[in-house]
């Protein structure tokens, strides 16, 4: 870039740093004022990973819903998925993790079979070369530091 004579120009005000914009945060909104599925997060705070099951057509839905895509009922039960899952596929994020996660790399992610669902999750407490498809994993609840929580799975 060409050098400029700084004395020549008026320097405008610009902030030195800008806080990460709220919607660049990957984690879901969980407050009842912001989402219709805050029950999911309330359950998570009680140590339970849950999802919605349609009362009318009995379909178990992941992620949780407020309207059933089969019958459009709004009536749901919150089903406890349990605390143990089985590893279906996994990899390790070595490069290219997004802002907010890059500091954790390398870290393992996987698809976990639980209660007839196959859901994605971070896999904690695990080394990539020691993980195996079929491994038993335990539910792990993490807190995000701002009053919110999320779930992961971990090796025992």
């Amino acid at each position, binding site marked *: 870039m060409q050098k400029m004579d700084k004395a020549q120009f008026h320097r405008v005000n610009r902030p030195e740093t800008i806080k990460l914009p709220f919607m660049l945060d990957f984690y879901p909104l969980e407050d009842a004022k912001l989402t219709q599925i805050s029950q999911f997060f309330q359950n998570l705070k009680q140590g339970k990973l849950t999802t919605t099951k349609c009362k009318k057509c009995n379909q178990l839905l992941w992620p949780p819903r407020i309207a059933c895509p089969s019958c459009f009922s709004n009536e749901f039960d919150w089903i406890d998925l349990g605390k143990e899952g089985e590893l279906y*596929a996994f*990899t390790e994020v070595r490069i290219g993790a*997004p*802002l907010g996660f890059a500091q954790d790399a390398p870290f393992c992610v996987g698809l976990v079979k639980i209660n007839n669902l*196959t859901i994605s999750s971070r896999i904690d407490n695990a080394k990539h070369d020691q993980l195996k498809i079929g491994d038993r994993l335990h539910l792990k609840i993490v807190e995000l530091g701002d009053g919110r929580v*999320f779930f992961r799975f971990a090796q025992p």
Partner: protein
Amino acid sequence: MRKVAIIGGGATRSGKREATWRDLVQEAGKSMFENIPNLSPKDVDSLFVGAADPGRFAFLLHVAPMVAEYLGIQPRKVLARTELMCASGQAAIRYAWACVATGLSDVAVAFGVEKMYMPDMAEAQTNMSCVLDREWDGVNSLSAPPFFAMTAQRHMLEFGTTEEQMAKVCVKNHKYSALNPLAQFPKEVTVEDVLKSLVVAPPLKLLDCSGITDGAAGVVLVPAEDAKKYTDTPMYVIGSGQASIGNNVNNLASLTEWIPLKIAAREALQSAGIALKDIDIAELHDCFTISEIIEYEALGWCEKGKGGKFIEEEQSYIGGKIAVNPRGGLLGCGHPLGATAILQAIDIMQQFRGEVPKGRHVQDAEIALAHNLSGPANVHSIVIYSRSMR
């Protein structure tokens, strides 16, 4: 329904470009109009802009009228941006085709553009991490490489596919991109180069992944009966198909068997009135090496699970059972999301016109299939092109 033809097109070189989003638009627009001397921007009544993420990559929205302004077009029929992530350009072509076919438009431009290189590449990676369901999959860092890494892991487990077989897809596509002046990576590679490249997300290495790419391209669609007014060598759009199942990874049909691709292919072949064996060139969406392997299977060029063997036997080279990605693929040419399908269409047109170098020219090709997947391979979009009107 009217028959539809593509009368020409133009593109930028793909790669890490010292250019802004709108520089790329102007470069490709100039190249497109210069390719069709009898066409004036004033003749164009409709414009579709395939752009996956100008909001994050260039901090621009409402981009279709901006492209129109920079191309000297004043649309009076249909104008829109078409977003379907990696298939945004294919969406633009399909909308333009549908509008010309129904008579809504008489001259439609299908354009595609993506500016992906940013001063801070962590920001670019972040932009790509909300493609999969952001709050339930993206939040677990499931962007494309980890997702396709797990797809590869399952394919290896279920069918015995190897990392060497995957590497051979990259070797083939780079053999052809080495002969493509528009390619981001115009250079041959060896199996060893691929296996020794940096691990991104095991089992995928850097050379198993298509690049981050800047690029733009455009093509012009008109009713087939008008095509010869503009060129002696138009290319005809003779069929198309698209299908989608699920979005969150829990709701996909299967990781290793791409059922929506089978559905889209059936629809595309049926609408074109052709059989699989009639296809001479296949431009397949090789965003990752494993993708191309699963696509051989889903499209029916080999049995389920035999895609690794198919590349190992060099059946997807020119002269094999089917010439796959003689352009050089996304692996060799780069993947400027919105522009990719347009670049495939232009290269097929040049194949039909005999304008590509000998080493990657498919002799006497009559029919070509162009395919894009998007997201976690839940969406598949296909267009079928023909050298002659059918």
